[in-house]
């Protein structure tokens, strides 16, 4: 009964002074809203990353000169690696091919950006991918037209190219590209194939690339470019073993002693997922900090409004005490009121948070999920705020002298 009475008073106060209530609850609304919106979006990206990164080619890993993600996770180690780690050469790929028994394919890969043109049409900032002939077995590159690059073309550094979907559709709006000569930068290449439309990842087109033989790539962009070694384990269960074999082989190749650190990096999709987890964790931590500030401010404003409410209703408190209300009754009344107000702020925040997440996922490629725990967290936190910041005004009301309170105006 008393709960409903307190809630009623709170709801009536809310109804009678909507603007003041809204301002009172702004802190709570902003706080819960940002938690819900960010949690929904991060949760959505989370699912996406795990599905896409882990799903496709999860038994593929890369041996690289250094791990660029380390720049985010451990900058010192990254800077040290830049200074120390030797370039990975094409001869390293040949060496590795023999020494990873658990791998089904080992391929060389190098990348750059360039303009690609055909007659009067061109597309800028296309990823030029130098590859040895195993790439179709390792990467997702189903053919739409023609054929892939052959071993012979790679060995002889022939200028041939397999186009990504976007390059194809932009340069050849109609007509057959096979056998035509396009320009990558200033160099001419003969088109041998076109890869199917691969869609987008998080709004980025996956079709902005051209495959060329890795030897051709190195001749064009400089033989001193460091390359990557892409390794596909024969089976997902052999991935760890393949990583171990590759690590061992690279260490021997580089003549490292047992206590020395690796002077190369191995990047698996697991690395990518754990990197994403690190990033999302730091986003969460920053979020918690910002939200705590919003909620503390919200709580203080709530307390202020409750103090005003106690002052406005001093006479009512005096009357209630005269009629037999004990301290606990008065405390209870004001706490129920502040908790109700605080929860209303939380609920509005949750609803607007989900709306914002939904709107963002409509206007942008970011997906979102509704995490039930975030709703519970929003409600519990605003509930606690109502209690914590309602306690002082409530106890102030409860400790009023009934004689003084009754005769106040």
């Amino acid at each position, binding site marked *: 009964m*008393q709960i409903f009475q307190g809630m009623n008073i709170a709801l009536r106060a809310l109804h009678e002074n909507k603007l003041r209530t809204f301002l009172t609850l702004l802190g709570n609304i902003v706080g819960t809203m940002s938690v819900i919106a960010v949690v929904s979006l991060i949760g959505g990206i989370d699912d996406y990353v795990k599905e896409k990164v882990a799903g496709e080619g999860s038994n593929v890993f890369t041996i690289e000169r250094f791990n660029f993600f380390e720049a985010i996770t451990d900058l010192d180690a990254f800077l040290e690696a830049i200074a120390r780690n030797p370039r990975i050469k094409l001869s390293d790929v040949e060496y590795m091919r023999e020494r990873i028994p658990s791998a089904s394919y080992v391929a060389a890969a190098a990348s750059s950006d360039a303009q690609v043109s055909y007659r009067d049409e061109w597309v800028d900032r296309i990823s030029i991918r130098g590859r040895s002939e195993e790439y179709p077995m390792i990467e997702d590159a189903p053919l739409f037209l023609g054929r892939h690059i052959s071993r012979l073309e790679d060995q002889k550094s022939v200028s041939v190219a397999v186009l990504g979907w976007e390059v194809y559709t932009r340069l050849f709006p109609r007509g057959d590209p096979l056998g035509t000569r396009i320009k990558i930068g200033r160099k001419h290449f003969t088109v041998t194939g076109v890869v199917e439309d691969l869609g987008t990842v998080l709004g980025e087109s996956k079709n902005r690339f051209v495959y060329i033989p890795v030897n051709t790539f190195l001749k064009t962009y400089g033989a001193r470019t460091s390359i990557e070694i892409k390794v596909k384990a024969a089976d997902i269960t052999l991935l760890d073993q393949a990583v171990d074999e590759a690590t061992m082989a690279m260490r021997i190749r580089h003549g490292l002693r047992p206590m020395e650190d690796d002077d190369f990096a191995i990047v698996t999709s697991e690395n990518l997922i754990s990197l994403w987890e690190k990033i999302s964790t730091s986003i969460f931590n920053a979020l918690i900090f910002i939200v705590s500030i919003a909620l503390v401010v919200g709580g203080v404003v709530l307390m202020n409004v409750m103090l005003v409410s106690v002052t406005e209703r001093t006479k009512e408190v005096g009357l209630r005490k*005269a*009629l*037999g*209300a004990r301290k606990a009754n008065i405390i209870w009344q004001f706490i129920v009121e502040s908790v109700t107000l605080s929860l209303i702020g939380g609920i509005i925040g949750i609803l607007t948070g989900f709306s914002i997440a939904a709107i963002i996922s409509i206007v942008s490629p970011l997906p979102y999920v509704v995490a039930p725990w975030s709703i519970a967290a929003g409600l519990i936190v605003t509930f606690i705020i109502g209690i914590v910041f309602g306690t002082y005004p409530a106890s102030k009301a409860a400790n009023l002298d009934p004689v003084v309170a*009754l005769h106040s105006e």
Partner: protein
Amino acid sequence: MLIKVRDVKKIYEVGIQKIEAVAGIDLEIDRNEYVAIMGPSGSGKSTFMNLLGCLDTPSAGDYWLNGKEVSNLSDDELARIRNREIGFVFQTFNLLPRATAAQNVELPLIYGGISADERRDRAAEVLESVGLTDRAKHRPNELSGGQRQRVAIARAMVNRPSIILADEPTGNLDSKTGIEIMSLFDTIHAAGNTIVMVTHEEHIADYAKRVIRLLDGKIEEDIRTD
């Protein structure tokens, strides 16, 4: 004896000055008495009223209400006594503006821990006894001054208290409505209730069967008029 007061004092300290608002009062009031307490302002009648109503505790002396010593109780114990033993009627009615007449009348029962069904029945019963059954669902701002005071009287009686304490009950009413309210008190008294009323108006005090006059915190005169 319903009320027994022995050498009760209330002393306020203002800075280094001590003010004896109640300077030693001895008083006994029996069940079903109808007492008016009179006196000029500053005579201590309001302070004494607060002591009788257990809103305040005396600085010295003893107070037995309905056989129980109440001068040294804690705040919560006093709240319980007020809830069970005392019905207050105020000059300014003191109704909750957003609650209906019936809800206002039920308020003391809520703090008495009475169930919702019984609260409703008892509120309806007392509202009927003050002639406001048809106004039960009205808010105070929809009622006349006299009706508001009758709601307040119903609220004072709903817990069947030992005494009804009325503080200038006609002070905010016109004389005709004042007479109506006083005749309602007569009826309540005739039904066996004990009434203690503070007033400074002689013609209101005339309704009482005993008039006590205070001056400088002491009883100056105690006259039975019946």
